[in-house]
């Protein structure tokens, strides 16, 4: 039990600080206490959350995926193109976009694995490619769905105030947590991140796992794009700019180690919520110049990661 406590300390510490942050915000700002605001923390950050879930796998495997923001934008454009301009039904267009996202990710994973190129570089190139493709898909850089009724009604769907986006995000977290803990594939991800050459020498299936991880990240990003289209009824080539950095931050704040091998999706959920709270707080503060939004977010981020760091230090002692 004791051992378990220490092993899960980073997660616990993150959870405790998240709680402190939430309670602090709730005391300072009455509106923050509402159920409505609570559910919005999930809905408003579903795209980021989905990207972060995929990113968790990639980082756990010792890699990084800088393309997710661009893939989100590209997926949103593709979906809007297929469902809007080409009038495909949503049940056909959405899977097609998901498949494209996964294929794109798998392609990058293939390059990374087969040619031993650094993931940072390949996915940075992937970012430029996906963003460029998204921009080329329409001269207006934006495709509006118009009166696409199925999408419109999906956007208004709620379960106990959770929007569809929030539900998809939560489902992705659950499934990923299960896969990472209970599936051989998930454990192999950890092994690769822990020591890639060891994983290979242990006879583990490195290639499919590695490529699969990037495919999954592409898939999650595409899902993020779809969620965005459902929420805003338009594809937009300039959304999610540098969102990958927020996603990485969420993953790292959630206790996943950038070098790979250690971390969890649950942590990522906490990380996303922390970012969500931090970026929501400026909306509650009275009469500040617009640059205070950035300063508040930066300061809270600093405060939070330092707290986390201190708690880790404290445990080590």
């Amino acid at each position, binding site marked *: 039990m004791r051992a378990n406590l220490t092993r899960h300390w980073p997660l616990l510490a993150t959870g405790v600080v998240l709680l402190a942050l939430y309670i602090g915000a709730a005391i300072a*700002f*009455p*509106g*923050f206490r*509402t159920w*409505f*605001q609570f559910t*919005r923390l999930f*809905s*408003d*950050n579903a*795209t*980021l959350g989905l990207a972060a879930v995929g990113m968790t796998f990639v980082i756990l495997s010792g890699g990084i995926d800088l393309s997710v923001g661009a893939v989100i934008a590209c997926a949103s454009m593709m979906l809007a193109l297929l469902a809007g301009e080409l009038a495909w039904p949503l049940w056909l267009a959405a899977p097609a976009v998901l498949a494209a996202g996964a294929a794109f990710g798998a392609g990058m994973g293939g390059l990374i694995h087969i040619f031993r190129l650094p993931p940072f570089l390949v996915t940075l190139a992937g970012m430029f490619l996906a963003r460029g493709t998204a*921009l080329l898909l329409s001269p*207006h*850089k*934006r495709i*509006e*769905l118009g*009166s696409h009724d199925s999408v*419109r009604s999906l*956007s*208004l*769907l*709620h*379960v106990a*105030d959770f*929007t569809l986006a929030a539900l998809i995000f939560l489902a992705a977290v659950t499934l990923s947590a299960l896969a990472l803990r209970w599936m051989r594939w998930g454990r192999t991800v950890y092994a690769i991140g822990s020591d890639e050459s060891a994983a290979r020498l242990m006879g583990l299936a490195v290639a499919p796992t590695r490529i699969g991880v990037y495919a999954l990240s592409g898939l999650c990003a595409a899902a993020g794009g779809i969620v*965005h289209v459902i*929420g*805003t*009824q*338009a594809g*937009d*080539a*300039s*959304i999610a*700019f540098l969102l990958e950095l927020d996603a990485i931050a969420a993953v790292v704040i959630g206790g996943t180690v950038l070098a790979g091998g250690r971390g969890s999706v649950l942590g990522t959920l906490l990380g996303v919520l922390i970012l969500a709270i931090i*970026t*929501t707080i*400026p*909306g*509650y*503060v*009275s*009469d*500040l*110049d*617009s*640059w205070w*939004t*950035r300063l508040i977010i930066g300061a809270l981020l600093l405060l939070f990661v330092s707290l986390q760091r201190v708690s880790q230090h404290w445990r080590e002692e």
Partner: protein
Amino acid sequence: VFAFASCSKKSSSDSGSESKPLVVGFSQIGAESSWRTAETKSIRDEAKKRGVDLRLYDAQQKQENQIKAINSFIAQRVDAIILAPVVETGWEPVLTQAKAAGIPVILVDRGVKVSDDSLYTTLIASDFVAEGRMAAQWLAKALNGAGNIVELQGTPGSAPASDRKKGFEEGIAPHAGLKITRSQTGEFTRAKGKEVMEAFLKAAPGQVNAVYAHNDDMALGAIQAIEEAGLKPGTDILIVSIDGVRAAFEAMVAGKLNCTVECNPLLGPAAFDAVEMVLAGETLPKNIVVQDRVFDQSTAAEVIDSREY
């Protein structure tokens, strides 16, 4: 079990009678240009003047942040929301929430596309197409209906960029001699405007007669590029732009810029008038158009001291 939102009770819009100040949320796009900063300042100043407690959220050009801000305004039951939407679509879910919570929404500087226009109270904005048209008309006259024009576009896909392009093209259409030879995005920034202009000048030396920039910042960048190429801006190459910020007037006084079409960012007074009217139960027109004017070098010197932004 699925259910559509029926979120909140009626909000307390009777706050006018109490001593508690009005609380208004303002979801601003960002601070990407002088024009935008002027708009923010105008709204803040007006709020201060009227004793309104303003919640300002700078969304850094991201719709998701704007939605986040509006949701937080709804959660804290503000009395009204002012929204400067970064794009036109995708507001239906969040505006539906605001409506259900009984919070009126005033749009400033661009509109939104929603299936039910009761989702917002009114739109206070300039007509971007008209601005583009006015710029074209001024230039057509100055060039006597013939010449090569290069265009510095705004951020691709943004409403001002596409409308100002559209309006300008409409405006020059009657003049067969006027041609847009090159058109690239300068992303509304000075640095990009300069870089693109440099490339234009290099690609076709001596063949550019006029520059049309979608905002003043890009025009100021282009002026520098022209000067560095050894030409005289405003004389060798005519320059017309939109917005009418103070720096543009200074450039006109110095003879480097020929014309700017005003796009008035001082929407604060109008916005808070609208807030107070709607909270008092008055009905407002769906669209309040801000009147914009054209300024050129002949009037610049007189007007410059009265410019607030």
